């Protein structure tokens, strides 16, 4: 009889999930599955609402990256109105997205993943968290928390509040930035740069100490998807899509995000509420692709800003083609923080941000609108169809964590195959398996459209479906 190991709940990720590991009679891992166990139903209950409400409704999907939903939804609204938004509004939206990338990436690296690097895989579970990090290295923990706060303050300076600002609307944004807002951001930038640089040094050290993990944690061939500018530079908002394979070859380029359905299809798995998108022409399971920081850095040719570009070149040198280890999501995330800070530094000096022309006015001019934005975790699509009076007839949301679903499953399986032998799994191995998921910084509240901070469960399953062992953490 084979066996099944369950890790439930998975900890230090956003939302609720569990992992099942399947063993054969000899105790070898045959497969592993990542399940998202919460269902939220946004796509259904938004039907019938006016499209103008959608930025604020869908922002409630998540308190960590509400800005991503806000921006993607507002863009879908722009498309329904068939307007080009005022240039200043676009610049302001981009600035808020940069603030969002900084705060979310800081949360992922310092609060959720750094405890594993700093305290070690074997550290006691009770202290292997941000509080343990505060006790072990208060300076680092404080810097990380303050970096996140900096990103949040950019969001607040623009939208009036850190979480769920009702700010981006179909047609533009509701307000610009004040001189005090600019001054506050400018004042805190040097500290933010210093934190980003020290996090990069910390990561290089962690990489050195975790060479084995870097080879095992989600190291496989897949496509990568994200936005790039017209000249192939890193992009986070308003760009076109590019798909690149593991060899580094461009598979599809400059695709208008509104045409995502020509390239991406979605399937459902019985074991998870998380949808499984895949690259259409390759089908399942070959159409596996990854999104998020690692993907964005693999598809682009440069970051477009000097300090991040220097680090980007070191990143790309780790592989001849695409960088395929999901462990390096962490590195990519830190490079993106650095790039975001450089772009923020440039943006806040733009006098246009204070103009009053921030919102285009129009009625319903198109019955379908697709809005896309690079959320910290990857590309987010909002796809709405409306009736002629602007009430939603259908809603489709594809979130970053969904795109990464196949990759997360494969990552869990790869780590389990490497470390698990028999049903006696040491805590450090369980934690490595969880970390495989953390690399992607998944937001399961987003992906299932699930509430709460996530604990995790691992189930060990034998052949015939017999549950051998369940490890639950809360």
């Amino acid at each position: 009889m084979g066996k099944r190991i369950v890790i439930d709940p998975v900890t230090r990720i956003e939302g609720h999930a569990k992992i099942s590991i399947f063993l054969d009679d000899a105790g070898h891992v045959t497969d592993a599955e990542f399940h998202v166990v919460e269902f939220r139903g946004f796509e259904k209950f938004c039907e019938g609402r006016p499209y103008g409400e959608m930025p604020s409704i869908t922002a409630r999907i998540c308190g960590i990256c509400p800005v991503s939903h806000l921006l993607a939804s507002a863009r879908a609204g722009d498309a329904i109105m068939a307007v080009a938004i005022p240039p200043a509004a676009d610049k302001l939206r981009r600035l808020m997205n940069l603030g969002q990338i900084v705060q979310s990436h800081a949360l992922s690296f310092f609060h959720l993943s750094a405890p594993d690097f700093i305290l070690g895989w074997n550290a006691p579970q009770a202290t292997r968290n941000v509080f343990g990090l505060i006790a072990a290295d208060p300076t680092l923990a404080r810097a990380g928390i303050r970096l996140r706060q900096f990103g949040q303050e950019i969001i607040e300076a623009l939208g009036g509040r850190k979480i769920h600002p009702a700010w981006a609307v179909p047609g533009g944004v509701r307000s610009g930035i004040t001189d005090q807002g600019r001054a506050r951001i400018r004042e805190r930038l040097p500290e933010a740069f210093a934190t980003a640089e020290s996090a990069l040094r910390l990561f290089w050290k962690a990489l050195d100490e975790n060479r084995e993990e870097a080879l095992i944690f989600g190291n496989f061939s897949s496509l990568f998807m994200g936005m790039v500018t017209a000249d192939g530079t890193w992009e986070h908002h308003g760009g076109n899509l590019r798909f690149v394979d593991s060899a580094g070859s461009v598979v599809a380029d400059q695709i208008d995000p509104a045409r995502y359905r020509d390239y991406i299809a979605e399937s459902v798995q019985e074991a998870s509420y998380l949808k499984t998108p895949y690259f259409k022409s390759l089908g399942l399971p070959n159409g596996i692709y990854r999104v998020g920081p690692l993907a964005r850095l693999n598809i682009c040719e440069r970051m477009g800003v000097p300090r991040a570009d220097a680090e980007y070149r070191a990143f790309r040198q780790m592989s001849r083609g695409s960088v395929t280890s999901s462990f390096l999501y962490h590195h990519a995330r830190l490079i993106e923080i650095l790039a975001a800070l450089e772009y923020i530094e440039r943006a806040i000096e733009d006098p246009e941000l204070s103009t009053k022309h921030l919102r285009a006015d129009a009625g319903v001019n198109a019955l379908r609108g697709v809005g896309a934005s690079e959320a910290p975790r990857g590309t987010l699509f909002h796809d709405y169809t409306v009736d002629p009076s602007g009430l939603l007839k259908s809603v489709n949301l594809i979130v970053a964590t969904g795109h990464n679903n196949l990759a997360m499953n494969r990552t869990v399986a790869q780590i389990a195959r490497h470390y698990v032998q028999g049903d006696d799994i040491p805590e450090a191995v369980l934690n490595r398996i969880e970390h495989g998921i953390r690399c992607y910084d998944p937001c399961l509240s987003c992906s299932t459209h699930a509430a709460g901070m996530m604990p995790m469960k691992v189930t060990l399953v034998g052949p015939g479906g017999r549950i051998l062992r369940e490890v639950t953490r809360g």
Partner: protein
Amino acid sequence: MAAKTLNINGKQVSADEGATILEAAIEAGIKIPTLCHLDGVYDAGACRLCLVEVTGVNKLLSACTTRIAEGMEVHTDTEQLRKYRRMTLELLFAERNHTCSACVSNGHCELQALAWQNGMDHVRYDYCFPRWSVDASHPRYGLDHNRCILCTRCVRVCWHIEGAGTKNVAGRGAKSFIIDDLAQPWGDSETCTSCGKCVIACPTGALFTRGSTVAEMERDPSKLAFIVNARERKQWVV
């Protein structure tokens, strides 16, 4: 007009004969919570928030529709009244789908403000989650039945200030709803003048200007009383 004298909350008050308890209280500077009351149009006694106790009467009376009488003794702020007001507010919230965080009137809503002022920190009743639609057929305005509390302010301003008679109430009890003309889409109404008085009168986010997003609907119902006063006092006649 003869004046009557009454006692509100232990305070001797006098008001014109024919005045309501609410009018007498307002004149004496005593605040009674109201929701369906709107300066400029007649009162309907629809919301039950202005309920008061009158000594010698064994039921609660709505201050907006009860006329004063000589020697009347009124209490507007007792433990029993506070309890009933909270209950009334909770019932209003439970009856339809009020989601403040996504509402055009968030922060400017009379229902939300009353709930806060009256200490309604949760709803003890099961939410009904009824299926109500949004009428967005009018080119300028929208009607979201989910947020309607059936105060009938819109009906009263439509009939008695604008004189168009477009808005009305159909159905019975909790299933009542606001209609336009013969229960047709608002945009198809032949009588609506698109004056927008109903939108100004609405205490919640039920009536709104299309294109408004969260918290953007701010209204000034005093404009309605201004129109009525100017008309009745013939201030526009030169």
